[in-house]
């Protein structure tokens, strides 16, 4: 069972009276790319944020690489292994790109400055931004900032990466540079969960597409199955609106 990277069972989350997740079951295998789609307010972002415990689940269980997530007790251990990329990048504006990349490996993993620098250089080169190492986030375009954010997550050498609408805050011409980096990661076998509205990406890169609505998974399957022949009415109507 070791190749089950993320196993979510009957996950529930409510904010006061508002039930956002009503029992989600989802298993993501090692090296699998799962794309989560659904209308806004359907709970897809909340689902992703629960995996990283940025939202505290109200019920159900989450197991990451065999280790059950048990709240504050082991959350930092889990977060080391599961990286997160945010819609709004959330780079640290008071640090240059290199410092953004080196901080967590040094403070959390305890690696030496030299090693952190080598790792940072490697991933910064990978996302094609080595020449921006000494720039500050506000000197970069949105697409560049998001690529730095991906490199920052990679520097922790995570076992899985979560993407929360990584291209939604970008100008259209910058979307592809970010998607290209994500495609490359997928091809290299990174385990990924991606919440996105980029259906082209879902089709091309996703091993599995999950349609979430009203806080439950309504339908899931390969991109061909889900886009080609949606079974539920809700999924059909959602796809007809966006495709």
């Amino acid at each position, binding site marked *: 069972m070791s190749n089950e990277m993320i196993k979510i069972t009957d996950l529930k989350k409510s904010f006061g009276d508002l039930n956002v997740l009503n029992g989600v079951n989802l298993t993501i295998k090692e090296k699998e790319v799962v794309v989560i789609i659904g209308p806004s307010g359907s709970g897809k972002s909340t689902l992703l944020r629960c995996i990283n415990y940025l939202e505290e689940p109200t019920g159900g269980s989450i197991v990451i690489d065999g280790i059950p997530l048990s709240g504050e007790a082991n959350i*930092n251990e889990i*977060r080391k292994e599961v990286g*997160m990329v945010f819609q*709004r990048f*959330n780079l640290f504006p008071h640090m240059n790109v290199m410092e953004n990349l080196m*901080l967590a490996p040094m403070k*959390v993993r305890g690696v030496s400055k030299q090693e952190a620098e080598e790792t940072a250089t490697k991933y910064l080169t990978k996302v094609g931004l080595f020449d921006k190492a000494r720039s500050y986030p506000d000197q970069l375009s949105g697409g560049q900032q998001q690529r730095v954010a991906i490199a*920052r997550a990679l520097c*922790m050498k995570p076992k899985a990466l979560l993407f929360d609408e990584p291209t939604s805050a970008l100008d259209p011409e910058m979307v592809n540079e970010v998607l290209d980096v994500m495609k490359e990661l997928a091809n290299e076998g990174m385990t990924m969960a991606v919440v996105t509205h980029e259906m082209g990406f879902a089709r091309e890169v996703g091993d599995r597409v999950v349609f979430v609505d009203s806080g439950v998974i309504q339908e899931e399957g390969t991109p061909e199955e889900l886009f080609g022949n949606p079974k539920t009415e809700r999924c059909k109507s959602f796809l007809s609106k966006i495709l």
Partner: protein
Amino acid sequence: MELNFDLMVKSFPLLLAGAGITVEITAMSVFMGLIIGCLVGIARLCTIKPLRYLANVYVDFIRGTPLLVQIFLVYFALPGIIGSRVDPFLAAISACSINSGAYIAEIFRAGIQSIDKGQMEAGRSLGMSWAQTMRYIIMPQAFKRIIPPLGNEFIAMLKDSSLVSVIGFEELTRRGQLIIARTYASFEIWMAVAIVYLVMTFAVARFTGYLERRFETK
């Protein structure tokens, strides 16, 4: 009425010595206030309820009572409880530090809350603890933003420290009073005192402006 400029000029050295003490009280109080304020400001935002409650009570009490009364409490009321006299300098510094701490706590709280929530989330999602994220991510950004209100607080304390003259502590205002007691030159001396305060607060305001501009470039 004839103004005695000669007396004004003559009294300046004495007043400047008092001003030195005013600066000393202010600097020490604001420094202590920074330490208190940083801790209390964070405590007001933390999830541990008793800690948050204590911090709230402290800030409410200090902001809700006059500094003059707080000085009296430390200097006159406290000896009754601890059974020994409190040194005026210690009383002045303590009262002003505790007072300043409450206002600076509010400055810190607002500064921390002004930082985008995504920063804390990004730090935590990388596996850093709450304390690490606070130290390396949130506080350095918050600190830049609180420089202007901290400058205001310093200026306010510079002026409010005149209140410690009531416990006989010889800072700038008390020096003025003493000179007037000898010379009866009320107008000249109070004008001189006012000018010395003005020069000091003006200098602090300019210095804060400089710091603000320096930190803005990055």
